[in-house]
């Protein structure tokens, strides 16, 4: 088995993984990036529409600074967050993040007179070049930094398993080059998982093609503790058709250089959401939108998969197009902009939860395994937060570094993984292709573990998933056994991870017996701060699961009520 050696193997090439690599490199620790897609092109970071102004940067008032923190804790994380971590992160974003990015050359959009263009209001934001496309130049800059620093980069290479030493500490990664079919191992003193917030586990998902919960599944198999896996966030107005555009959002946030934001209209033509009017504090108003939509769905005036519309017909087109990309999608579909609205639907977006971490060091519960960005269970997504993790994980690894030893990898473990991959490539069942199993699984999650769920539906989902595992997987067939660019083989590897992750999410969703923010349970419609202002911690216990609760400290912001109908809670 071909084995590469490095100090730290980083799995994931988004904002968190790249920044971790750059920070480690700066400290003289050798990183290596394993990216399933292409750095600067894959993952969620590319989708950053705009960048929230933190603290008192760019003339933010004290009130605006406080609003931003309150937004993050309430609307973005429903109080399921370490508030002290959030404060540290906010300070870093204000003092280090923006200046560092600008010094590197990131272009924060100005007007012709040289003023930074912001979205006005209770919470302000800026954009890199154009609003709606900020992630593109942002991640392109990271790609070029990685290139310039000479950091080894393995692209279109999937990490298929974490490798352990005799004590169970993580010391390596098993990899498959998707383009050539070559397998190899990376031996490292530590591994950073940075595989992102978003996985394609529902019929409609913002997760990109390669995001199949690999990080969650590999960490779980290695024994890592998970947290709040049920806390799934949703986009409420992503374009309904074509399916390819399921993650293309009609951004509900305030527009740069304008007092307006997109409006949402039900099937009867009645407006039911407009962020700047309805809830100025909900900067990224996804949960508020979702609750507004749920009321429309209950009234029969919309469906979660369509039948309602979003757009800018109340705006001057020049106002929308000056600093945003928003008009392009409408025009590409042949719609009149801004007169015509586009049909939209719900899409599963970020997962607030993930792998349990120590937020001071980004250690997971498994020695040698560190976490950065969205795959962690400590916060919900914003590109600035994910980036901050890249710094903290480098701090954590640097502090632990002398205690982390490189060790030869176990031959038998590597051989077993090789055999598993070969078996998948040689799948010769009669019935079903891997991509069909993926779609079936996504259908189950959408129907039974979707926006609104209850115990009966979720139990039935678990049975369906078990049936996939027992009946369909053995009958999986691959048409072509080539080693070259074999996406069918990759789908077969992915689907096993997806099945595991879907089960864990469903179990966690059953466990949280309340509704909170975007987590709607028909059988427990109230937000219950007396019992559930707590992390829903999930551990492996032999061959079964063990749940426990861990309450959050609330030093700066508190919900201010005990029990209330979730649909009547603002956040």
């Amino acid at each position: 088995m071909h084995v590469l050696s490095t100090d730290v193997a980083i799995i994931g090439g988004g904002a968190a993984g790249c920044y971790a690599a750059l920070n480690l490199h700066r400290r003289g620790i050798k990183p290596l990036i394993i990216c399933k897609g292409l750095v600067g092109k894959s993952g969620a970071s590319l989708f950053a529409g705009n960048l929230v102004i933190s603290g008192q940067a760019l003339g933010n008032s004290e009130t605006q600074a406080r609003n931003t923190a309150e937004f993050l804790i309430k609307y973005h994380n429903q109080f399921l967050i370490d508030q002290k971590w959030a404060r540290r992160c906010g300070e870093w974003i204000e003092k280090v993040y923006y200046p560092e990015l600008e010094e590197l050359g990131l272009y924060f959009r100005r007007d012709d007179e040289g003023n930074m263009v912001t979205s006005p209001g209770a919470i302000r934001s800026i954009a890199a070049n154009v609003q709606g496309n900020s992630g593109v130049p942002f991640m392109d800059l990271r790609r070029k930094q990685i290139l310039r620093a000479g950091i080894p980069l393995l692209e279109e290479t999937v990490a298929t398993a974490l490798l352990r030493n005799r004590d169970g500490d993580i010391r390596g990664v098993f990899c498959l080059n998707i383009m050539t079919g070559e397998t190899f191992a990376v031996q490292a003193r530590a591994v950073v998982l940075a595989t992102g917030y978003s996985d394609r586990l529902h019929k409609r998902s913002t997760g990109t093609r390669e995001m199949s919960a690999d990080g969650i599944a590999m960490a779980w198999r290695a024994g890592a503790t998970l947290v709040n896996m049920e806390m799934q966030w949703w986009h409420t107005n992503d374009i309904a058709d074509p399916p390819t555009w399921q993650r293309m959002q009609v951004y509900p946030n305030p527009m740069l250089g304008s007092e307006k934001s997109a409006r949402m209209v039900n099937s009867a033509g009645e407006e039911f959401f407009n962020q700047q009017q309805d809830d100025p504090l909900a900067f990224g108003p996804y949960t508020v939108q979702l609750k507004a939509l749920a009321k429309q769905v209950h009234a029969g005036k919309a469906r979660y998969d369509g039948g309602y519309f979003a757009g800018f017909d109340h705006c001057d087109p020049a106002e929308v197009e000056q600093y945003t990309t928003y008009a392009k999608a409408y025009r590409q579909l042949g719609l009149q902009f801004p007169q015509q609205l586009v049909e939209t639907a719900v899409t599963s977006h970020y997962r607030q939860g993930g792998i349990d971490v120590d937020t001071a060091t980004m250690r997971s519960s498994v020695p040698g395994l560190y976490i950065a960005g969205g795959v962690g269970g400590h916060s919900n997504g914003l590109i600035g937060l994910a980036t901050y993790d890249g710094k903290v994980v480098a701090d954590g690894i640097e502090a632990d570094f002398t205690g982390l030893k490189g060790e030869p990898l176990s031959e038998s473990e590597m051989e077993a993984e090789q055999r598993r991959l070969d078996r998948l490539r040689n799948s010769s069942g009669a019935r079903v292709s891997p991509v069909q199993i993926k779609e079936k699984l996504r259908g189950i999650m959408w129907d039974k573990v979707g926006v609104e769920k209850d115990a009966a539906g979720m139990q039935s989902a678990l049975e369906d998933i078990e049936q996939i595992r027992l009946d369909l997987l053995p009958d999986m067939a691959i048409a072509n056994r080539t080693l070259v660019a074999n996406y069918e083989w990759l789908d077969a590897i992915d689907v096993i991870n997806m099945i595991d992750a879907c089960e864990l999410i469903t179990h966690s969703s059953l466990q949280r017996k309340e509704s909170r923010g975007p987590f709607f349970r028909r059988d427990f419609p109230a937000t219950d701060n007396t019992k559930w202002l707590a992390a829903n911690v999930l551990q492996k216990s032999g061959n079964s699961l063990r749940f426990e609760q861990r309450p959050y400290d609330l030093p700066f912001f508190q919900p201010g009520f005990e029990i209330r109908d979730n649909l009547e809670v603002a956040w």
Partner: protein
Amino acid sequence: MLTPTSAASRLGQTENRDTLALRNTRFAEDDFIDVSVRRFDESGARSQSFKVPYRKHMRVLDALNWIAENEATDLAFRWICGSKMCGSCALRMNGREVLACWEAVEPKMMIEPLRNLPVIRDLVVDRTPFEEKVARLEPWIERSAPYPGFPEPLSHKQMKDASKALDCIGCMCCYSACPVIGLGDLTDFAGPAPLVQLGQTALDPRNSPEKVKRSLALTGIFNCISCYKCEEACPAAIPIVSRVIEPLKAKTAELIPGMARHSHALRAIIAARGRVDPGALILRVQGLRALANFARIFRLLLRGKINPLKTLLVVKTAATAPARRLLHGKAAAP
């Protein structure tokens, strides 16, 4: 006068009744699309045909996904975001470069991989030659003055060309469409996409001229024939020639005059004579080496392309004065 605009990709569409509105309304829900996909593996190339049911607002990528789910589960094609951000799904549909996720389907589609790049399998091309060219140009900023702190003084006026280049998603549509890149190693032209990637920082006033000069020296930029094929193909609607390549050519002419000898000579001849004198141009660019190619000179003489007498006497035309005004006055190109 015809001025190049960002709408190169839409030229002729209205005349040909090929507007976005029409492209999006020509199908009904129960229509089928005829798709022929060029497949390639170690055993060679072949075409495979499929009938794909239309669904609302269908894109080329939706059709490929339908095929991979229902007919040819081993069809290899690259895509990541599905929403025109990653630029990984570019291919050729009916002879033109498109982003599969962005382009509406057509009733009959011939789908092929991009040109000018090695094919790995089916529609998946090897991005390495492109990425290596980009890396060689070192497309980043080296400041000549220390960074003054956030936010630094900078206006959109100063960034207007770089800002256009920043819309690039590296899809390589233009790289596939470029006829000069199609010549292979005959020129040292970096190609449109690498130039746009370079333009992001080379047209940024914060970058040091020394750094920009070093990068531009490696571009072979004057091999660009300004045919606008790249602009026509760009799914991000970047005015590649007018807002990126031309400004980069102007920068090269200023920073590395030797690379722009042909352009400088052409301008000087037009200013002096009010017309293009091919004989003078050959002499100025190639010097006396040009005389060594007897056969060519003879052909040019025979066809009346050159007139040594006129060339030596520097015969002026009535257009000399207006030409000088155009080249040196306010209306002159940068």
